[in-house]
């Protein structure tokens, strides 16, 4: 069996998200989900990237058709709920409430020379607490033990969004 190398095209994903901002199709975005957690923790397997964006379009569709059409014109294709680039699935998710706040307060980074934003560990933990699946609880534990978490900030976010951490 041929040994095909595979590289996550994260720089392409972030570049595309920056283009969406420049084109006015979205206001702002940040990397969320597992890849955001990996920014702060050991690497672990994940099969897609989550881009959480603040929409420029306040209608019900949140401008998603225009976003899809823009990315498809750049060679991306759609497969169920994902947009695919270089064999890697990406989800574009509309921010609201806690996730919108997470985008606004996201950490600015540079990935392979591409400027981007990634959720801070405190917001990743709060979002995981709000979702509460088994993998979210594991993510909280991983971040609490491996990342530098501002406990006062985390407590403030949890309190304002009426959330609690497991075993609290």
């Amino acid at each position, binding site marked *: 069996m041929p040994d095909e190398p595979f590289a996550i095209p994260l720089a392409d994903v972030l570049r595309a998200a920056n283009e969406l901002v420049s084109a006015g199709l979205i206001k702002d975005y940040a990397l969320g989900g597992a890849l955001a957690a990996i920014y702060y923790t050991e*690497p672990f397997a994940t099969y897609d990237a989550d881009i959480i964006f603040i929409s420029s379009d306040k209608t019900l569709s949140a401008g998603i058709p225009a976003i899809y059409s823009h990315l498809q014109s750049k060679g991306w294709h759609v497969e169920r709920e994902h947009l695919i680039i270089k064999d890697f699935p990406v989800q574009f998710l509309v921010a609201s409430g806690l996730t919108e706040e997470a985008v606004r307060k996201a950490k600015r980074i540079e990935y392979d020379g591409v400027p981007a934003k990634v959720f801070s560990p405190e917001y990743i933990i709060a979002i995981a607490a709000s979702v509460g699946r088994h993998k979210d609880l594991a993510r909280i534990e991983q971040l609490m033990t491996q*990342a530098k978490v501002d406990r006062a900030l985390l407590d403030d976010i949890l309190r304002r969004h009426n959330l609690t951490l497991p075993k609290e």
Partner: protein
Amino acid sequence: MKDEFRRKLARLSFEEKIRKVGELIRFSRKIKAVTDLDALKGIPVASVREEVHDLAKNSKK
């Protein structure tokens, strides 16, 4: 020891961590392809063992 190793991995650059996630994806796709292919013939244990050995060796680099 294990916890210290995990913390050490957490301190790698983001680019390096993403490269390692890519390796994990490649490996899991390969395992899936091998098991799909051999579903009716039995799993080729020797080949899978070799892959695991290679992955372990490469992750130490």
